């Protein structure tokens, strides 16, 4: 649903007559132009999957990462303007580091996401700056509090989720995520499902090559956020490709 702001959309410090801040909405459109990122929380951890579109064959493999480490125990998957996202990952890292310096222990994810969301929100108040054009998903695992997943969007709000998706195919991804019984799954099972969802929502026609970036944090990694090991990633991608082929085959039979 798009509408023209005409005059009320020139700065973030202006409301429109129907109570909208158009600059923030335009920032969210910037996120929708980017490729999809999903995060799902399961029984014993959190798994991130990002559809990283390869724009040129000259890129080094594994460059232009879309998943960041904020502290040992927190991962951040982003969608939208990558430069904005990188700057926010630095903000998140500083918050986590200051917290650890002052209080001696890991920053709780709820608090971290609230602090970064407050920072993002501050940029939606003034005409001198523009809002951040990125959304990001934060995930962590703690022995006592268990797995946590939060998403922050350009308006500066943060919510906790069991599963969420951001980027161009977020609606399709959300539909797929809702089919999962994530509360009963372990990370190892979930990795394969996340890979499958990314493969499903990837548009073969409009975007050609893509690289799947997978990371997890949970009991399986002892609370450390890290990229999924190569052998597990290869297995997950194989599962994803096989599932897609099966679906294609079953469609042919029905005809």
């Amino acid at each position, binding site marked *: 649903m798009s509408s023209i702001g005409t005059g009320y959309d020139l700065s973030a410090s202006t409301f429109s007559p129907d109570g909208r801040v158009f600059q923030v909405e335009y920032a969210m459109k910037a996120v929708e132009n980017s490729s999809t990122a999903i995060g799902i929380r399961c029984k014993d951890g959190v798994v991130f999957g990002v559809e990283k579109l390869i724009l040129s064959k000259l890129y080094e493999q594994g460059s232009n990462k879309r998943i960041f480490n904020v502290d040992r125990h927190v991962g951040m998957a982003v969608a939208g303007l990558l430069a904005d996202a990188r700057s926010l990952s630095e903000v998140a890292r500083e918050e986590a580091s200051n917290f650890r*310096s*002052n209080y001696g*222990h890991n920053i709780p994810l709820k608090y971290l996401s609230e602090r970064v969301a407050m920072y993002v929100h501050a940029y939606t108040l003034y005409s001198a700056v523009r809002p951040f054009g990125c959304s990001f998903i934060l995930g962590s695992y703690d022995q*006592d509090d268990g797995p946590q997943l939060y998403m922050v969007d350009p308006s500066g709000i943060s919510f906790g989720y069991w599963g969420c998706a951001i980027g161009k195919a977020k609606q399709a991804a959300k539909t797929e995520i809702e089919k999962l019984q994530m509360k009963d799954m372990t990370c190892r099972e979930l990795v394969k499902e996340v890979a499958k969802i990314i493969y499903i929502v990837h548009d073969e026609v409009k975007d050609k090559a893509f690289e799947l970036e997978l990371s997890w944090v949970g009991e399986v990694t002892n609370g450390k956020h890290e990229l999924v090991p190569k052998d597990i990633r290869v297995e997950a991608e194989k599962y994803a490709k096989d599932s897609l082929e099966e679906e294609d085959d079953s469609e042919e039979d029905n005809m």
Partner: protein
Amino acid sequence: MERHFMDSQTKGVSTGTTILAVTFNGGVIIGSDSRASIGGYYVSSKTINKLIQVHDRIFCCIAGSLADAQAVTKAAKFQISFHSIQMESPPLVKAAASVLKELCYNNKEELQAGFITAGWDRKKGPQVYTVALGGMLLSQPFTIGGSGSTYIYGYADAKYKPDMSKEECLQFATNALALAMGRDNVSGGVAHLVVITEEGVEHIVIPGDKLPKFHDE
């Protein structure tokens, strides 16, 4: 002798003191004497409270310059209560001890105060942390501090057992304080003890004449 005199002029009232904190099965006991002195000659207070409550289940005992200790604990109490409200949950004992440590370390040139932080939290249960003069933070099952502690290292090391019951631990803490107060001239008065468990906080005061006696006739 002269250095001692100089110290009391610049530092004023000090707590030559005995403080301790001991974990037991299900909680922690923190205790101190109640004497404040100037220069080791004059007892400026017989009944000061060196056990400061910094949060619902976290206490701090102070040693060194009383003024410095009170200023630091006041700032720490504010920071910890603000932190707890932001977190929407009771603070971890480690967080409280870290706040004290940051204050002591960042102001180490001006300050002359050491602390023992003890308490209970949901994550790790009963804990004891020492924050030394320069800002060192150390977690221990039990710890003793202050000038009077030098006289009871032997007793504490010999008699401490992990996982004591509350009564055993109370006996251990009371004995330790009594022995230290009996030998250290700048420790004395009454024995203050606070028992911290998940259920709550219990404050026990033992007047000087009710303390256990050790060959005192």
